Each structure stands twice: as C-alpha cells, then as structure tokens.
C-alpha cells in the first residue's frame, strides 16, 4: 500500500481505474467521460490510464456519458463515470434508466452548486436531486473515506442481491482539489477485494432478451418492489463488504453512518461530508468543557438508514441537522429524511440549519453558534438560514 499525498480527484480517478482494471479477467471495463468543474481531473485521469481490457469514451455530453456506461454495463462490463452540478442535471434521464435497468454503475459526484447563477463551489443539491432514482448514495468526509467507499460501492452494487448503481459523493474543491495523505490501494488488493463483475441479465446472443421494453402495471409494480427489497438488503451486504475490506486492507471504513459520543449526549448534530470533519473538532472541544454533545456523520443517504439513525441518536433531547443543500419551499434534504425518521421520537427537538450554501466556508465558529442556538431552543421552528458569506 502506498501512502501518498494526493487530491480527492486523483484518489477517485486512481481507485476507479484500479477497479476497472480488476475486471480484465472478465468482460473488461468502460467509462463514458465528459468534463465539468470540479470533477474534470477524474475523467482526465481515466483517459490517461492504460487499461488492459477497457476503454474510456470521450463523449459529447453527460447524458451520453451515462448512456455509454449503460451500454457497457448491459454488455456485462464494469462501468463508471464522474460528474458534477449541471452535468448531473443533464444526465438525469439516464441516471434513472441505469437504476431501472438494474446496472451496477458507480458514479463519482463531486458536489457543486447548481446554476444559474453559475457557481463552482460545493453544495450537495446536485447528487441529492436524484435521491428518488434507484441508486445508492454515499457521502464521503475525507480522501481516505472516498477511496474506501468507491471500492465498497463496486462490491455492493455488483452483488447479485443488490444490482443497483451507486453514487459516491465528495465536496467540490474542499475535497476534490485539496491534498491529504491517503493509503492508496495496490492493484493486487483491489483485484482480491472485488469479485469480477457479473451482470446476470446482460445482453447475450445465446439468450436474446429485450431489456427495458414495455411493461404492464403488474410487472412495473413488481419491478419497483424488487428495487425496494434490494435497497433494504444494502446494510447487511455493506457490512459483509466492510468485513472483507478490513481483512484485505487492514482498516475499517465507516458504514451507513458514523456516530461519535452520542451515548450520553443531550444534543446531537448531524452533518455530512467535510462539514462533518469540522463538526468533529467542535464536538471534541465542547466535550472537554463537559458538554453532553455528540455527532452523527451521515454517510449513506440511499437507502436511508432509519433504524441505524434512531439507534445512533440514542436519548438525545435536541438534534440539529446541518444541510448544505436546499429544497425550495421545504428546507434541507437530509433534514427531510431525518424528520421523517424521527416521527418515531416525538420528544426530540429537531432543528434544521441551512449552512454553507454556494460553497461558503463553514468554520468551527459558525458551527459553535449553531450549537448555541440549538441549546437555547425550547421548540423547533422552520429551517434556519445561517448566512455566512462575508
């Protein structure tokens, strides 16, 4: 294992390439590649990589990037791509198609604000836009988490009990363009960890099927129910994958979420991606002052881990959700999910904070002020905009 100082984009591109290469003994790999800031370096990395049995197709749009991935995956190959922001928006039709076809494509989403007006900085509104698509979604808080989650994603997505595509998200620029020391996997480790990709329903001349044609309501319902059942199997399959991962790589990545010091906490704050890293430092500092505070780093958004979340929150009286995304007319999108989950906990005061939209820097001081606000509340109100742009 090589310990290297790399950017998030480099780490993602490298890991995707090794995963693709690991399928050389089977039907190979293929990616559709189209640039958009801030993910461009990922597809550039893939185009430079010398695959034994693979091809990275430089297409004309994100819609076709996913189209190429769909075709390759229907032909039985391992397939992956990356996108951001309006690129994901342009790709949406084929994002849904990939999931409905039950194809285990992995896509890196480097989170960026949707435009217009144009803004290249981080906001999770792009990948959360497709929350109702049949895709798994993971949100990564560090470069190492990114590498590990990409590998886990291929293993879970391609598992015959799941067969669904997966988004692995990171913060634009904050993660994609900064460097951290990462244990980069070796090809042998990746090949040992990932079984060859087997898309059981792929197009075959020996068994000529029509995939994606017309269905009646009965078959359509059945199709959706099967997708839901597969989603419900994800936590179990993910845990198995993490167990195997630990044996091969010697470390244990976070699963559906990561709870820190929530056991005796009165106040629990929930955040994802790099805001969760900053939040971790704030929680640590407050614990030194004997505050009963804990945090949950939200990692898996689809399927949404309701049972694990309720268990992680424990006996907390107040829960604050920090959302770097916004569903106009409603509020933060993580908050919506958590509010639906915490209906079962009517005594918990749940408050949503919209913070860092458009990429504003969410500092420890801002998080401190949010926690102070939450601790002073006797009842929750509509989502609170925490404007931070100076």
């Amino acid at each position: 294992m090589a310990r290297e100082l790399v950017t998030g984009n480099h780490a993602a591109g490298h890991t995707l390439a090794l995963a693709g290469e690991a399928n050389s003994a089977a039907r190979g790999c293929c990616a559709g590649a189209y640039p958009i800031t801030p993910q461009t370096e990922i597809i550039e990395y893939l185009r430079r990589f010398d695959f034994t049995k693979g091809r990275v197709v430089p297409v004309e749009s994100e819609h076709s990037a996913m189209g190429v991935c769909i075709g390759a995956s229907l032909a039985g190959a391992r397939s992956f791509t990356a996108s951001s922001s309006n690129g994901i928006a342009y790709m949406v039709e084929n994002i849904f198609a990939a999931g409905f076809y039950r194809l285990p494509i992995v896509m890196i989403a480097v989170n960026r604000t949707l435009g217009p007006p144009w803004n290249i900085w981080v906001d999770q509104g792009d990948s959360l836009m497709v929350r109702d698509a049949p895709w798994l979604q993971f949100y990564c808080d560090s470069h190492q988490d990114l590498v590990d989650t990409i590998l886990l994603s291929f293993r879970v997505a391609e598992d015959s009990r799941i067969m669904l595509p997966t988004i692995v998200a990171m913060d634009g620029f904050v993660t994609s363009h900064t460097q951290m020391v990462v244990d980069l996997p070796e090809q042998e480790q990746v090949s040992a960890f990932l079984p060859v990709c087997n898309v059981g329903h792929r197009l075959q001349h020996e068994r000529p099927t029509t995939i994606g044609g017309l269905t009646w309501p009965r078959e359509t319902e059945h199709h959706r129910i099967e997708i839901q059942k597969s989603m419900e199997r994800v936590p179990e399959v993910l845990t198995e994958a993490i167990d195997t991962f630990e044996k091969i790589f010697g470390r244990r990545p976070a699963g559906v979420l990561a709870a820190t010091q929530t056991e005796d906490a009165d106040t629990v704050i929930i955040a994802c991606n790099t805001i969760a890293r900053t939040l971790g430092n704030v929680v640590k500092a407050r614990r030194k002052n004997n505050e009963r505070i804990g945090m949950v780093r939200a990692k898996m958004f689809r399927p949404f881990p309701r049972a694990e979340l309720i268990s992680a929150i424990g006996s907390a009286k107040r829960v604050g959700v920090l959302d770097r995304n916004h569903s106009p007319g409603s509020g933060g999108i993580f908050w919506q999910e958590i509010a639906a989950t915490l209906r079962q906990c009517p005594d918990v005061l749940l408050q949503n904070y919209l913070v860092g939209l458009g990429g504003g820097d969410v500092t420890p001081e801002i998080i401190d002020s949010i926690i102070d606000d939450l601790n002073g509340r006797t009842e929750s109100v509509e989502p609170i905009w925490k404007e931070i742009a100076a």
Partner: protein
Amino acid sequence: MTTTAQGNQETAYCDYLLRPGNTNCAGCGMSIALQWVDQALEGEKPTLVIPACCGIVTAGAFPTSAYGAPTAAATFASSPALATGISTIAALNEETQPVICWAGDGGTYDIGLATISAAAERNENMIYICYDNEIYGNTGGQRSSATPAGVVTSTTTSGKGERKKDIMAIMAGHHIPYAATLSVAHRDDFIRKIKRARATKGFRFLLILSPCPTGWKSEPEDSTELISMAVRSGLFPLYEIFDGVRYCINKRPDGLAIDEYINRQRRYRAVAGDPTSLQAFIKDQWHHLEGMVKAFPATDEDGDR
C-alpha cells in the same frame, strides 16, 4: 420458433429477427425492412439498440418480445451512446455480431442528433438505421424535422412550412465510411446495402423511407407502391456516400409526376392540386446530388453499386 423474452438456446439461432405476432400496423415499413435486414444478415443476429419510437412498441410487452435478437430499449436520445458501450465491450471480448441502432426520424433528425453526431465523429463501430416515416408516429403524428413541406400533422394543421432536413448531408459531413438511402420497394438494392454496411467497419448510416399508413393517411396495401413512387418521382433518391466525400446514385427518377404520390396520402391534402413546392424541392435536391456525383464520384474501389 420461440416467442418468449427468455428465448431458448436450441431455437435462438433459427429464430427471426422480427417474429410473427408483433404489434406493427398493417403496411408499416418497419415490417418489411426488419425482415430484409434479417435476410441480408443471413442468419447472423445483431444486437439491437432501439430508442423510444414505434420500433420498441413493436417488441410488445414484457415478458414477450417480437425481437429474436438481444435488444436494449434506450432512452430517446441515447441509442448511439448505448451502442457505443455495447460495441466497445463486444470488441474487447472479440464478439463479432453487428450492433444496430434502429431508430425513427424523431430519435434521429431531432432529439438524438447530438448523440448520433458524436458517435459518428468518433467513428464508433455500429450500423445506425433510421426508419424515417417523416412524422412523430408513436405519439400520434406530430411534425418532425423530417416532415416534408406541405404535410399536415397534428402540430402543422395547415401544412408544414419548412422543408425536410437533409440528414444525409449532415452524416456525410462526419466523413463516416458509409451512408446510404434504402427503399422498401427495391429489395435487391436494399439487401446489397445492408450487406455492404455489414462488411464495412466504423459508423454506418442507413436511411429508409418507411411508409406509415396511420400517419400518412394512406392505404396499407399502397405502402410499397408509395415508396416506389417516391423513388421514381425523385422525391426520395437512392444513393450512397463513401467516406462522406464520394457519391453514387443508384436510381434516377423516371419522370413519374409527384401528384401520383401525394394524391394517395391525405397528409398532403393541404398541397393537393398545387405540388409546386415539392417539385421545387425535388429539383433543388437533384441539382445538389448530381453536382456532388459529378464533382466527387465513387471510384472502383468503392465496389459494386
């Protein structure tokens, strides 16, 4: 013969590309064209990629399929993108069956044009076949950019004002190795062009004028005769373009008046009795085509024509 989507290993190879029991309307050009494609391929089954269009309705509803070949139903604008992925993986695994995109004029001239252009520019290894019925047939008959001037559709109720888009010129501009127009009234020419496309590598584009009695407001039994008339009157020239730069005309007009053609289709009712705009279109089309053939003729190396 098997009629289930699951197919059957014993019978798959003696299966038809278009099976009986499909949902095509009587007189649909696709029914002829798909059978002739099957015959030209001499038993070899392609992988089909079909976007949203009548061609995927042809398959019928799951779990049955009218297609005796592996078939992917693509989103509307994506068939050449899916076919790129499929043919890439086929090549990496040394599988030789052709990958065929089978799309209507809506998916080709309009919503799919950027995707087709990109796949053609990359010279992806696929045969792209457009069965052009000059209308959005699957949604009940709205204008497309392939609809000729004067035609009444549900979105051009007094007749379309604009001329039909010259998709062949657009494809030629991509310098693809082979492009041709095909008629379901000229079997020998049709079969020869499918074989020619099959024997060529890279992006191949075939345009079929496909009769649509439902949309053309014509009689199903007139379908092939109408296409014959379109060729004879010069409205639909049969020609080939090699590498986007060398031209060859396969059939020249024999002087049949265009009135014969338009009088048997109620879609032309807005210009019935005054076909001058169509005559002008035919004249301009042939002026361009004859000029190209004269300036850039096909050579002996382009083979039998």
